[in-house]
């Protein structure tokens, strides 16, 4: 009984630690500023999300 309780607590701790790690990784994902002035675009100019695609034709 005591052993099962310890195992459950250990599992819960692992879940909490893992969630924290995932959140930290997401938080740490770097964000860069990209100059888009004068570039062709589609969609509303003041849209909350900007998708920038660097591409080549060949």
């Amino acid at each position, binding site marked *: 009984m005591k052993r099962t309780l310890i195992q459950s607590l250990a599992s819960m701790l692992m879940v909490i630690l893992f969630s924290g790690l995932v959140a930290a990784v*997401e938080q740490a*994902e*770097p*964000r*860069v*500023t*990209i*100059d*888009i002035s*004068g*570039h*062709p*675009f*589609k*969609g*509303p*100019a003041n*849209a*909350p*999300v*900007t*998708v*920038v*695609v*660097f*591409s*080549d*034709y*060949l």
Partner: protein
Amino acid sequence: MLEKYPTEVKLVHKFLPHVSEFSKKAAKAAMAADDQGKFWEFHGKVYENQEELKLNATQGRSNDAKILEIAGLLKLDVKRFINKMDDPAFEELIDRDLNDARELDIRSTPQVYINGRVLKERSFPGFVDAIDKELKREEERDSK
């Protein structure tokens, strides 16, 4: 993607012409089409003809005729289109993009950024997930 998020997403194109000598010419041609409000149509047609264009470029053949054919198909003012291709402003814009790509250490195309964050999973669900995260961040920022 824009059909799913018609009011939430703006799609911006930046140039990274690095594969062949023709790459930069195609980028300038796309901007010359943009001058007549047909960037995305031109962009689509170039991709449709990518295999032929690629073959010509790798075998040292000119793609000028194909580019003019596309301009004609899109009913562009071809004379204006040709003149615009040499606009120094386009050269400057493309060079700026090349410089940005160097600073961002972009090594292959396409490279996608969503609100400045690199999109690692470039599948439809990957896009949806990243866009939804950004929209959630916006909501959280607005509610503070």
